Each structure stands twice: as C-alpha cells, then as structure tokens.
C-alpha cells in the first residue's frame, strides 16, 4: 500500500469527507431560501450525501460488500420510481412514507447494535442510552408514519380512530412500557426479549398516537414525526460516534420542530392538543352542522355573471384551497388567470400557510400548473391589499377565509390567522355545496351581502368562467392564445 492509499483509507480522511459532506448539507439547505437557488441547493445537499456515503466505504477492509451494494441498489430501485411517479397532490403521503422508512432504519440499526454487543454488554452507559432512545423514537416514527401514510392514501379511514377517554391512559401506558424496557436494558438486562418488547411497545405507541388524529391535522403530525426521525438519527450518530449523522439529524430535528410549530399556529391549535387527539370530536360536529346551515340567505350566481365581474376589476385575488387540488382544477385556473391578465387585470394568488395538506403544498400544486412564483403572495402580504381588491375568488377554501377567526370568540377558529377575504369589495366563492370545512365550523363569509356563491365542481366552474371570459374579451384578448 502506498502512503497515499493509507491516507485515503484512514479515519482522518474520512472525517475530512464528513466535514465536507455536512458543509454541503448546510450550504445546500441555505439555497432553499429562494426559488432560483433552490434546485442547485438541493443537488448540493444530495452530492453531500454521496460524499459521506463514499467516505464511509473508504476503509482498509470492508466486510459484506455484496449486502451493502445490494441494499443500496434495492433501495434505489424502490425510491427512484416512487419519486418519479408520485403525483403532487400525493406529496404529503410520500413524505410520510419516506420519513417512516428512515425511522424504521434507525430502529433496526439500534436492534442490531443490541444484538452484536450482546445487549450492550461492556458498552458505555451513555452509548446504550442513546441507542435505546433511537430505538424507541425510530420505532414510533416508523409505525406512526405508516399509519399517517395509510390515512392520507385512504388505505384506512381518515377519520379519527380513538378509544375516547381510554386513549390517553393507553398512550401513557405504552410510553411507560417502552421507557421501562429501555431503562432495564441500560441497567444491565442483556436478554433479547427486552429489546423486542421495547420495539413492540414503541410500535404500539406510534400507532396509538396517530390513529386518533383526523386527516386535517395530519400535516402537523408528519412534520412532528419528521423531527422525531431526525433526532433519532442524531441519537444513532452519538451511539455510533458518527459526526455526519449527528449533524444531519440535528438539522432535520430543527427544521421539523420549526415547521411543526408554524403549522400548528396557522391551524390555531397547540401541538399538544393535536397529539392528545383534542380535535377528534370535530368530525361528528361537522356532520351535524352540515344540515344546519341556513341556505336561504345565500346568493348563488352563474359563471357568466362571475366573468363579467372579473373583467371589470383592476385586481383579482384568488384564494385556493385543497378543494382546488382535489378536483385537479389548477390548470383550468391558470388558463382563466391568463385570459384575465391579457385583458389587463392584475391576478394574484393568496396563499394561506396551511392551504393544501402540508406547509407550502398549495405553492407546489400551483407551480406544477406553471403559475409564476411572483404571483403567489403570502397571507401577511396580501391582506393589506384586499380592501382595494375588487374581486376575491375563493376556490375550494373555507376555514382559511372564515371571518369568525377574528370576530367570534366562541368559534373554535378564533385567533387563527386568516386571509381577510371579507375586506374585499366583492367575494365569489366556488364551492361544491354548503358543507362546512374540515373544522366543521359555519362560515359567515358565505352569508355576507358582498358574497355570491357559484356551486359545482371547481374545475367545471372554472372552465365555464373561462369560456364566458373568452366571449367577453373577444378576439383581441382570447384570439392570441386560442
């Protein structure tokens, strides 16, 4: 072996590669602050990952080459098509399942560490402790994410599945059981059944935490589980004395925590209330409320009238909600917006932080339909503009424009930041029916004298409006693009 080869295979060189790798993670992630630098940033982070994986394999002697390469190949064979084929509306469940397998990997690694050291025999207590923590959190994350995936993919019911008052004691008991097994292992119980019991209790805990949570709260749960997996990866890094894993895990832990808080705030709920299943009762309320909405005071309108109102406006602000994505109406919406722009109307999209099914999801859906990034305006920036906006078009959104969030202290939405659509000069709501939103709360905006409702499927309504617009703006407006 030459001196150069010895150096390349040494621990120092590996450490240098690790430092380079996590430098690339941080530099890459900082690129995500803007759409122009984001693609490059993500690729730099991915290259950083390649560097640390390559660094790990640079050893004087590597056992089990076949298993390592085989595992990497099989994982790529699963991951690549999944990432290429997933639809943008399915992004939340994709993130959930990727997060889940990460957590599963953490738990399995901890289990193998336990086995190979014969139950952490002759292992420093702190290493055993961190490894046990990783096993618990990883297992919770794997099973919790799996349930979240099932709910979002509608493999299991999206409704809360709860034991009612027994739920909290059950969760508590499972948590205590998992921690007790962990404590027993660290304090010297070397038999494998302890570890298996720990993994099973954590698995039960993961499922019991997520099952009672309704579909609307799922994004918060995914962000939370993402943070969990990150922290468990960091714990594994401490147990294996691997700096790259510690740094990467902590970055994910930090980002997951920030996103969890931000989402919970935007949905007007505390993380604790969501995890405790505090919103579970709302679904029954929504069924009851659906029948109770007064339909008499609602003014319905036609596509032709909406089109006329839109052409007379200086500025139209569109408030898209998940209903837009469900009916795949992004493209119809973009076509309508293009016609309006050609007629000299300024079109903007008001994006609530929780529009869609995860933070920023609506932006992805609109970006897919080639809506320019500059037209997507965040809630705090659009609200001051709304009083001088002639028409606000609410499409498949409900709770995020509910004025009760400001006006009615009795409302469960009270205090939630909203897009203040009621401040606009007129409001048009595209909606399938008078059913209340996910929170199961009536929306006084629909009864406002300035509001008209266009009932029907969002896509069909938008296509109808676009046709009317084409007729109104005539060959000068529409001819250039038809």
């Amino acid at each position: 072996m030459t001196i150069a080869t010895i150096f390349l295979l040494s621990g120092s060189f590996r450490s240098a590669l690790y430092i380079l790798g996590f430098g690339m993670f941080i530099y890459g992630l900082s690129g995500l602050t803007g759409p122009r630098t984001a693609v490059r940033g993500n690729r730099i982070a991915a290259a950083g990952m390649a560097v640390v994986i390559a660094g790990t394999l640079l050893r004087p002697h590597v056992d089990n080459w076949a298993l390592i390469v085989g595992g990497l190949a099989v994982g790529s064979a699963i991951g690549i098509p999944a990432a290429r084929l997933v639809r943008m509306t399915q992004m939340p469940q994709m993130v959930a399942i990727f997060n889940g397998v990460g957590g599963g990997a953490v738990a399995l690694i901890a289990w193998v560490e336990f086995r190979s050291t014969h139950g952490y025999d002759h292992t420093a207590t702190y290493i055993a402790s961190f490894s046990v923590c990783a096993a618990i959190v990883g297992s919770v994350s794997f099973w919790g994410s799996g349930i979240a995936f099932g709910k979002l993919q509608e493999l299991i019911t999206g409704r809360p599945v709860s034991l009612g008052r027994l739920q909290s004691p059950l969760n508590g008991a499972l948590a205590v059981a998992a921690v007790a097994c962990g404590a027993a292992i660290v304090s010297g119980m070397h038999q494998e059944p302890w570890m298996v019991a720990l993994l099973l209790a954590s698995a039960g805990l993961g499922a019991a935490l997520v099952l009672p949570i309704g579909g609307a709260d799922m994004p918060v749960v995914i962000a939370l589980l993402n943070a969990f997996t990150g922290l468990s990866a960091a714990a594994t890094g401490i147990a294996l004395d691997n700096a790259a894993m510690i740094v990467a895990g902590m970055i994910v832990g930090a980002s997951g925590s920030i996103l969890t808080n931000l989402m919970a705030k935007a949905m007007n709920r505390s993380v604790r209330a969501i995890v405790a299943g505090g919103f579970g009762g709302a679904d029954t309320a929504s069924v009851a409320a659906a029948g109770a909405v007064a339909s008499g005071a609602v003014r319905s309108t036609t596509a032709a009238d909406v089109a006329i109102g839109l052409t007379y406006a200086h500025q139209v602000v569109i408030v898209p909600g998940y209903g837009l994505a469900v009916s795949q109406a992004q493209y119809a919406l973009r076509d309508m917006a293009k016609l309006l722009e050609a007629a000299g109307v300024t079109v903007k999209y008001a994006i609530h932080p929780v529009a869609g099914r995860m933070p920023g999801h609506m932006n992805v859906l609109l970006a897919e339909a080639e809506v320019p990034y500059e037209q997507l305006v965040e809630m705090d920036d659009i609200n001051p503009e709304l009083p001088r906006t002639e028409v606000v078009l609410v499409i498949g959104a409900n709770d995020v424009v509910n004025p009760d969030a400001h006006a009615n202290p009795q409302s469960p939405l009270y205090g939630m930041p909203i897009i203040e659509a009621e401040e606009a000069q007129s409001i048009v709501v595209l909606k399938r029916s008078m059913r209340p939103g996910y929170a199961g709360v009536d929306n006084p905006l629909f009864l406002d004298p300035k509001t008209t409702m266009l009932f029907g499927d969002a896509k069909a309504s938008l296509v109808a409006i676009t046709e009317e617009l084409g007729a109104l703006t005539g060959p000068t407006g529409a001819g250039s693009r038809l």
Partner: protein
Amino acid sequence: MLLTNLATVALAGFVGFFVISKVPNTLHTPLMSGTNAIHGIVVLGGIVLLATGVADGAFSKALVTIAVVFGTVNVVGGFLVTDRMLEMFKPRPRGPRSSDGTPSQKQDRPA
C-alpha cells in the same frame, strides 16, 4: 467523545435553526421533503455495521440490510422528489407567457 458529540449536537441544532427559519412559507413543502431526505443519512449507520463486520449472524445481517434498503429509499427518493418539485418553481424565461401584468403595476387598467 461524549462531550465532543454533545457539542456537535448543540452547534448543529443552532445552525439548522438559523438556516431553516430563513426559508419562506412558499418553499416549505420542498424543505420538508429535502430535510426528510437528509435524515436518510441513517443509511451510514447500516453501512458501518455491515462494513466493520459488527453485524454477525444471519438474522442481524438481514436486519441491517433491510435498514440499508430503508435508508436508501429515504435518501434517493427524498432528494429526487424534492428536485422534481423545485424544478417547477424555477422561473421559465422562455415559456409561452405573454403580456403578463408585472406585479408592480397595480393600477394600470385599460379604461
């Protein structure tokens, strides 16, 4: 060793917090799937256990190989899907976009 690692934990936590809190709302979904890909770094743990021969016996080897598969799915899938999403946010200068009102011209209606 523990102390060094705990210092790394604290510093990485701070760096993560400051970098991530600058990301705008609009890019939060790609951020989530991007950071999601990064915790796939646990694949390193699996590789280390296999490469150093720590994982002995067929059952342990099977478990840790599954961990490598899981971690790889997490890393590869996560980065690819993030890339796909971010490509959509890229400004398209040569697209078929015509005469769109620039956001700054708020009050320029043709009479």
